[in-house]
């Protein structure tokens, strides 16, 4: 579903409407015509989707770093643990995988673009690209290197292919030099890509 008005986009950018855009418009108009959805329902869904971003995931990660008990419950039962942040993951399952000195985790969906939207918002374009989707399972270390992430040989790389009902979030390693930071300051260090596992959070220096 496109959040912008397609006709407006067309007149401004003179880009021809694609097959899938036509399909989206047709299905949307049919659903409204048949009374299954209203325009307001769609507007609200788009607004909700746009309002979610990686900040939520960053808050969860920072809290896990600051509170060992929360971290344990997050790793054991993420859907229950994230409820205290007002996050409802619905019928899906959520699994948080922890990066350590011995293990590095990487998330991909080879079949489509499954992504923990409830914690990270909409996926970036590269995550949906066929190149990332095919190469992340085949040569994860090369893909990581292209993101500037060098994983030492002795560290195990675990790739998670999100093919069905599970969604994954990587709990990055807390960077050195952050012992004195508040949870709020910690959250500011946690970027989207580190929660997908393509980057690691660099050592902190104030």
């Amino acid at each position, binding site marked *: 579903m496109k959040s912008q008005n397609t006709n407006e986009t067309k007149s401004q950018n003179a880009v021809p409407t694609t097959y899938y855009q036509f399909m989206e418009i047709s299905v949307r108009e049919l659903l409204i015509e048949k009374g299954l959805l209203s325009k307001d329902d769609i507007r609200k869904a788009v607004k909700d989707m746009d309002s979610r971003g990686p900040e939520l995931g960053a808050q969860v990660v920072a809290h896990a770093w600051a509170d060992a008990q929360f971290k344990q419950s997050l790793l054991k039962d993420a859907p229950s643990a994230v409820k205290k942040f007002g996050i409802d993951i619905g019928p899906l*399952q959520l699994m948080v995988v922890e990066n350590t000195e011995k293990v590095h985790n990487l998330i991909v969906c*080879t*079949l489509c673009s499954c992504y923990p939207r409830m914690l990270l918002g909409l996926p970036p374009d590269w995550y949906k690209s066929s190149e990332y989707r095919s190469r992340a*399972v*085949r*040569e*994860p*270390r090369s893909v990581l290197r292209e993101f500037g992430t060098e994983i030492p*040989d*002795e*560290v*195990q*790389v*675990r*790739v*998670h*292919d*999100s*093919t*069905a*009902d*599970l969604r994954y979030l990587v709990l990055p390693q807390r960077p050195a030099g952050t012992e004195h930071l508040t949870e709020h300051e910690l959250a500011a260090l946690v970027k989207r890509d580190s929660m997908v596992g393509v980057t690691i959070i660099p050592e902190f220096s104030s």
Partner: protein
Amino acid sequence: MNAIFNPGDPVQVRKGSPPGHIRTPFYIRGCRGRIERIAGKYRNPEELAFGRFDAPIVPLYRVRFRQQDVWPDYLGNLEDTLDVEIFEFWLEPSNLNNI
């Protein structure tokens, strides 16, 4: 339908290529791995996709593969793994213990 596999069990992914909406990636078919965990039960999405909303409820697993068992020319740590979610009807028991 109760799950027939338990965590740690060696399994092999079926090699079939049926038509339709398939949730098992092509690259993993025929590969051997071990059950990492039972990931719940869901209505079979391969039937839901065709509007059969009363599709049977089937167990879903997370199966862990060693990268070297998926890609024989894999470069990197031999302990590197790949976890894939696979529905039970795509799995067969594997009697090989070297995985």
